């Protein structure tokens, strides 16, 4: 869970009368009261599964302040039964492992340290830590790989880097006992194979989920004034939250020149980030393109898996770029200088703009951030769809409704490096440590308290557990529901897990910026420039190896 979300929930939990009035409130009180008792109790070996999950959520208890290292250790101790089932006490005595991960917001590695302390005490292994800032992560990882100086045994890594690591044979294949220990069947749809697998082998323990969802202003669609005007000027459809990109376009044009019902300032429609964001900005063009470009019968949508020929200049992407260009004059002034951070936090949450696509942060921040004014008027959905989809195989548009939620960045996972494989004891130790962090019950705690991770298992969406722990059901359903529908969508667009994927995104941002600034004659010319730059990157990295790795990542 994100820190802000937790704090808001805590604030809400402490002040909300509704909590005390409802049955759930009684449950919440029991939680708050039970924390003192629960905190002092040693975990019972034969604790029933449901009891364990309820007990975990009491550490430290909603409303009892932010968790500390002692709490993380307590949680680590409570979920140790899974390890005990596969590892004897002291089995890894003398083993030393190095874990490389992030230190964002004092989370990630900081939690892992606490979680793994009881594991270290039980197994006898010792873990050394390499903490990295997010900004240093990519460079450190790439340099380690390129210079052959992989100096870590376990790594916290995003799936987009799987091409760089798994594709080069640097990771250790997951043993079957680990698959059973972490209950991989519980993963949400898109995190199941082929994500986390390479060439049919499984490598990744997921600890996080990621996707883009669609956020819109409910008050725009509740506005009688807008509804009336739309009836007079619109295309005859209902004035309701858009379900397709065509509707997004129409609504954006319609809203130009009107006044925002909340702020009284100018109303705007969809907010496109027109400035790059270190590669991450390209995800937002993808949001617009996936419904057109991701055909349900074809797992590939960004490159042709047989040739690595970019699809970024096919009619689907060109249409998405054109649609961005078509409503540029409806955007706030200076939008050419707005990156995704601006559109989400300085514009949408601050009351500018009616629609946006983003990660779950916007959902949580809408209610929790002090800078947000839209907490009560924001609604969520999966990304808009389309009434046509491009069929790359036939090279023609198909008239059919299509949706393709963009699983942007896919989420963090824990991977074990192949360098432990030469020593069976080290290998088992590394996988045991990774499995400890990727367990089903610890996942519930990580999604309920500040951890930096989003839910990624179906079992994390059992709203009764959250309610019993003291959370407001409506709040938590609002936050989690839009993600769940995206995660389990049958036509989810998974990004290519190939080496250098962010190089492609980064250069695309540069070319898109030129296109948006009018330096190319058309959307097609802009898309062609991106495709040409992508071809160069593919040739530089090695076309044959990219084809092989892309196919492997798609499970072909």
């Amino acid at each position, binding site marked *: 869970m994100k820190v802000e979300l937790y704090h808001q929930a805590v604030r809400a939990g402490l002040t909300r009368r509704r909590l005390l009035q409802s049955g759930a409130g009684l449950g919440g009180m029991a939680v708050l009261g039970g924390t003192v008792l629960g905190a002092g109790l040693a975990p019972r070996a034969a604790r029933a599964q449901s009891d364990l999950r309820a007990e975990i959520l009491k550490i430290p208890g909603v409303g009892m302040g932010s968790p500390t290292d002692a709490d993380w250790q307590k949680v680590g101790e409570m979920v140790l039964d899974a390890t005990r089932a596969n590892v004897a006490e002291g089995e890894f005595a003398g083993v030393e492992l190095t874990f490389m991960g992030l230190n964002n917001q004092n989370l990630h590695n900081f939690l892992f340290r606490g979680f793994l302390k009881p594991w270290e005490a039980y197994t006898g292994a010792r873990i050394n830590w390499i903490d990295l800032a997010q900004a240093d992560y990519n*460079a450190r990882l790439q*340099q380690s790989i*390129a210079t052959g100086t992989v100096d870590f045994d376990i790594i916290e890594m995003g799936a987009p880097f799987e091409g760089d690591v798994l594709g080069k044979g640097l990771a250790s294949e997951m043993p079957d006992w680990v698959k059973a220990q972490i209950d991989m069947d519980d993963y949400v749809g898109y995190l199941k194979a082929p994500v986390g697998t390479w060439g049919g082998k499984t490598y990744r323990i997921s600890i996080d989920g990621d996707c883009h969802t669609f956020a819109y202003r409910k008050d725009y669609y509740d506005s009688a004034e807008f509804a009336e005007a739309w009836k007079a000027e619109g295309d005859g459809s209902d004035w309701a939250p858009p379900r397709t990109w065509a509707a997004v376009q129409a609504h954006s044009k319609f809203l130009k020149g009107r006044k925002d019902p909340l702020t009284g300032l100018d109303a705007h429609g969809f907010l496109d980030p027109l400035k790059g964001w270190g590669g991450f900005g390209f995800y937002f063009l993808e949001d617009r393109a996936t419904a057109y470009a991701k055909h349900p019968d074809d797992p590939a949508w960004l490159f042709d898996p047989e040739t690595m020929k970019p699809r970024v200049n096919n009619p689907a992407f060109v249409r998405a770029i054109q649609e961005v260009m078509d409503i540029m004059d409806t955007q706030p*002034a200076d939008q050419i200088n707005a990156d995704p951070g601006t559109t989400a936090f300085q514009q949408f949450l601050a009351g500018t703009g009616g629609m946006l696509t983003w990660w779950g942060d916007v959902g949580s921040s809408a209610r929790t951030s002090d800078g947000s004014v839209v907490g009560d008027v924001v609604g969520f959905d999966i990304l808009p769809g389309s009434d046509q989809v491009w069929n790359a195989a036939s090279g023609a548009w198909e008239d059919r409704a299509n949706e393709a939620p963009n699983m942007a960045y896919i989420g963090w996972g824990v991977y074990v490096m192949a360098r432990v494989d030469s020593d069976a004891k080290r290998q088992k130790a590394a996988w045991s440590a990774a499995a400890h962090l990727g367990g089903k019950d610890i996942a519930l705690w990580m999604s309920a308290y500040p951890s930096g991770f989003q839910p990624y298992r179906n079992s994390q969406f059992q709203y009764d557990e959250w309610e019993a722990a003291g959370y407001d059901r409506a709040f938590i359903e609002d936050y989690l529901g839009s993600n769940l529908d995206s995660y389990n969508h049958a036509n989810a667009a998974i990004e290519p897990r190939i*080496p250098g994927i*962010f190089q492609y995104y980064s250069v695309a941002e540069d070319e898109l910026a030129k296109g948006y600034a009018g330096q190319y004659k058309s959307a097609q010319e802009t898309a062609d420039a991106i495709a040409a730059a992508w071809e160069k990157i593919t040739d530089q990295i090695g076309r044959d190896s990219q084809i092989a790795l892309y196919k492997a990542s798609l499970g072909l």
Partner: protein
Amino acid sequence: MSAGDLLHTVTNDNLSAQRVALGRWLVRGSAAILVLVAAAQGAQVAGLRDFGFANWRPTLYAYALWSVCLCWGQVLMRGEQGKRVLFVLPAVLFVLSMAVLPLIFGLGIAFSDWNLASPTGRKFNGLANLAQMWADPFYWNALKNMVWYVLAILPEYAIAFALALLLNAEIRARKFFRVAFLLPLMLSPVAVSWMVGKSMMEIRFGPLARLARWAGWDSPSFFGSPEMARFMIMAMDAWTFIPFMMIMILAGLQAIPREVQEAARVDGASGWRGFWEVTFPLMLPVSLTAILIRIIFKLKLADIIINVTAGGPGGATDSVTSFIFREYRDRSNVGYGTLLAMVYLVLIVIAMTILMKLADRWMRPKY
């Protein structure tokens, strides 16, 4: 040693043949060890034979040993003269290790195809990177922007000079203003970009945007058009660094004897002529130094651009450094990024040499 040199000799050297021989063997022996270790490591890397080296540290240690022996050997072989050499030799070795050798390695990388994501690693590709640079519109665009950025130094200099004249005059609270005017220089450009570029110029709530609206600009956009965005970047950079030029010029002004101006006044020079014919020429050396140093600062301009515009809109604010940053860091294109930096270095060296020659000519007294 000549008799003249003896005047500066503290002790008269009586170097024994054994001592000289020991020094010679120290230097030669350590050099031989260095060559042997480096050759062995090179052979291992080339795949000729495995000597069991895990990393390049043995060569580093051999280099350190050779450096120490070389310094020590100078004293043993050359006595007092060797001690004199010791004042310079460690610095030479340091520069060699930290600047010259990396530069040579850098050149090797610059002429390589090396994308960190490529499974084949680094490959020598001759002049291909140079050809790619020649056809790269982003690089030329960034170079063109740099010309604009550097030209902006001229108005910056005029403002700095004016401020320095003000602060040199007998005004109230002069010390306060001197400190106050210096404050922007004490700020990190990253802080300036967030504080000014991202906050004060935020189009909806930023105080500068509110001021612009109050002044009649309906929808202020500070980074919307290429020209405006470039000007704003220049303005933020100027705000940070004008105090630097100002303080240098102020120091120069304070060094001019008051009598010179008094003499000009006695000769009937007006205020303007006194400045233009007397103060300004006397300030030329300081001015040119300030401008040259400012150019060097300007050529490194990247932080404000990366934070505020990321080079946009459409590359209008891109500097060479911010482009190299994207190429090298975001795209892991180490070979090409290094070549761009090397070419930039060569361009800077040539431009600065020409500028310094010209400055030298301008500064020569005409009277």
